[in-house]
């Protein structure tokens, strides 16, 4: 009986396996294009995205190959990078950020696109609806627009004396602009003051800093995209120097020295994006795959930074934090 049972289990496993790993046409090598406006090896170009594929059974170099393209802040290069990926015959393009998503929507043609970190794709008209994105695009949406208000509230709770908040955002990015607008609306409701500091290029940060130095705000809120991430160190340095509490969007920035960050779990977003890309590799049409919203949010706080600027963080804030750096 033992033998029979083993054969049965082996047979069952043999049947079950292809269902789990339907991609298992090992001779086929899938090509996944990753494009990002920021620096190489950061964001979706970092190791996090690759590990989301390897944990699904893909082996890099054996049945999957990644084509990485980084615009290094030069947003106007994105269409060109998308063209490169299409020319490289990638099976799917994963983008990060609204300008990248827009470039992919405009240039990718028949190549399916999975968008991440692009704000609210419905509001920016990247897709028709969450349930039926249509076209060649799906991906992970973010509740990021509304979250601007939440961030403002968290900032206020952490430092109740905050009244005026300088908002740094990539004014060329529609998704980011929407987030800024949400912050402005909330500020009005909460009786706060927003100092808009829209930037377009790395050089604009100096202008923004000069503006803040001229009229010092009580706090900084950095709407996080590839442009602002590229200049995050300068922002953090400025905040430290001027003892300004600052809030960012992703926990990674708190690990880089930022004071606070609140936003969707970027790891989950990349995992879901990889999941959607995997289904597209197995033959699903992106237009049939509904966009997914993040389910987990992370609140990170760096107590070292707080201490450096002599900030006393209330207990209620620490209680909410998922990630506390001491």
């Amino acid at each position, binding site marked *: 009986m033992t033998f029979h049972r083993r054969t049965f289990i082996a047979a069952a496993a043999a049947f079950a396996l292809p269902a789990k790993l339907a991609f298992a046409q090992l001779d086929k090598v899938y090509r996944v294009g990753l494009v990002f406006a920021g620096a190489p090896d950061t964001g979706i170009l970092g190791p996090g995205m690759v590990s989301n594929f390897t944990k699904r059974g893909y082996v890099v170099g054996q049945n999957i190959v990644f084509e990485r393209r980084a615009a290094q802040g030069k947003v106007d290069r994105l269409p060109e990078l998308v063209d490169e990926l299409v020319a490289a015959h990638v099976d799917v393009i994963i983008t990060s950020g609204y300008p990248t998503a827009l470039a992919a929507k405009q240039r990718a043609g028949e190549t399916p696109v999975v968008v991440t970190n692009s704000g609210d794709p419905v509001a920016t008209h990247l897709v028709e*609806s969450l349930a039926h994105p249509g076209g060649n695009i799906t991906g992970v949406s973010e509740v990021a627009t509304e979250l601007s*208000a939440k961030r403002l509230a968290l900032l206020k709770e952490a430092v109740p004396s905050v009244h005026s908040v300088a908002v740094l955002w990539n004014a060329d990015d529609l998704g980011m602009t929407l987030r800024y607008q949400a912050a402005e609306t909330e500020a009005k409701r909460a009786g706060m003051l927003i100092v808009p500091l829209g930037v377009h290029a790395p050089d604009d940060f100096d202008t923004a800093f000069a503006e803040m130095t001229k009229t010092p705000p009580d706090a900084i809120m950095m709407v996080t995209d590839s442009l602002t991430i590229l200049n995050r160190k300068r922002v953090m340095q400025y905040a430290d120097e001027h003892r300004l509490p600052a809030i960012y969007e992703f926990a990674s920035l708190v690990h880089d020295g930022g004071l606070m960050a609140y936003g969707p779990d970027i790891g989950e977003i990349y995992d879901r994006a990889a999941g959607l890309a995997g289904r597209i590799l197995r033959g699903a049409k992106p237009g049939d795959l509904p966009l997914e919203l993040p*389910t987990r949010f992370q609140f990170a706080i760096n107590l070292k930074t707080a201490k450096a600027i002599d900030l006393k963080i209330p207990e209620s804030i620490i*209680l*909410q934090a998922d990630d506390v750096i001491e």
Partner: protein
Amino acid sequence: MSEPGDALRSPRPRRPLFQKYFLVLFAAVVVPLLVNGASEAWFGYRDQQTSLGQRLHVEAVSAGGKIRGFLEDITDQLQWTVQLPWVSGSEDQHRLDVLRLMRQVPAIVEITLVDGDDIERLHVSRVDPDVINSGIDRRADPAVQDARTAHVWYGPATFYQGSEPHMQIAVAGTRKANGVTIAVINLKLIWDVVSAIHVGRSGDAFVLDKAGRLVAHPDISLVLRGADDPAAGRLKSLLQAMTAGGGEFTAGRNAEDASVIAAMATIPGPNWAAFVEEPQAEAFAPIRASLWRTGFLLLAGALFAAGLGFLLARRMTGPIRVLERGAAQIGAGNFDHKIEISTGDELQRLAQRFNEMAAGLAESRERSERIARLKQFLSPQVAEIVEGSDREALLDSHRTEVVVLFCDLRGFTSFAGAAEPDAVMGLLQEYYEALGVIITRYEATLTCFMADGLMLLLNAPVPCPDPAERGLRMALDMQASVQGMIAGWRARGHAIGFGVGLAKGPATVGRIGYEGRSDYTAIGNVVNLAARMCAAAEDGQVLIDAVAAAEIGDAFGLISLGTRTLRGFSEPVPVFSVAPQEDSAAPADLLLVAKPVLGD
């Protein structure tokens, strides 16, 4: 099948015995097998269906239990927020409780606390800024009202932008002052539970709300696609089929449009339906396997029955064929044929009877052939006696006293030369028929006849009393009979007469001839004498030699005709005759007709 010598081969029977036996034997095995197999298959099918239904039902209940567990974990956690009554200034403490709770339960998107007066006191969200003491009157909110009566209230599933599924859960404190907590749950997180449920090899589970909308599925995209998706429609009809059918399981098409067997369990509280589905091919695999097994057994049984029927039928009809062939052989006269059957049963006995019958027939044929042979020269009665005696010992050659009688027609040769062949043969026919009757009556032995002449023996091969007298009586009867005919012939102008010679003496008697063609005859002087007497006799006359006359004595009033000189006899021979009854004026010239010498 048939031997070349099988002359009497009959056509193939319309319904051969082999066929009948085969069919009966085959049916005897196959019919019970079929009945048994069919009933087993039917009951097995029903058992399998029942067990499939039970198994899927148990799976569905278990899946429902897991989903319910997920929801109950949340409500249990929410209960902590309604443990303390609302007092002024307790908002902060409540908020801390809620924040702690939301860190524990990631599925909670937002929580709203309502105080004992149904006024909203706290709103905590993962997305929106928290709101304290908004003062909104939630009295009319069904969540508040129903939670107050039922303690736990589950709202309908709602879909953010028609895609992301959410649901409100409200719990009320045991005291009114403890207020009500309303939480919005992100139902996408049920995925962790539902995707971990596996039914059979490749079956899975999903959850529909009471309106039939997909709430949870291992393929999250199906949930997010909304109610207008074709997949959602198929699942809804599964729910309808299940509700309408009332059985333990239903067959239908799943979200992927594959044929599945699905079972359902209600999840009390939200009143959802937890479904488990298994591909039809997989669910019915045991049923199909058992049907195949039964079919195979039936086939094997039928083959076995066919083989058995064939062997038995051949064993039964084989000897019958041998018998048939044997009977044909015997019928064709081949009595030496032996029917060889050693089945040890009635058929062997029947074969023995056939063999015995053949032996009897052979014997009987041999006997009748022998009698027929004897009848060539013996009268039937004598032939029977001789045949019945000890192996024809009577016919062996020996020397004995015999009475020899010769007779012939006078004037026959000239008549035969002139008359038509038909008239000649007709006359001879009439003549011999008349004589034959007499010869048979007197049991005389006919040794030979040639044209119109006859030679008869008495006292051989079977002795008889007073052979001479018996011979004379016969001669007289023959004369009387032939003379009657002669009168008719003469009337037609044929000058024909009839004479008889009779002598007694020792002669050697026995059979002469060759295989298949033999005669009984006598050799001796007495034969010559009788022949000469016949030649010497006139028409209507019977000439008798001295030995016979002496033996007859006076019984017939014999008269001596003196002596005659006969050819072949050196001495004159005394001749006797019966005194004529009436004058017969036979012309003398008739007596001069040349006669063949018989027995010489």
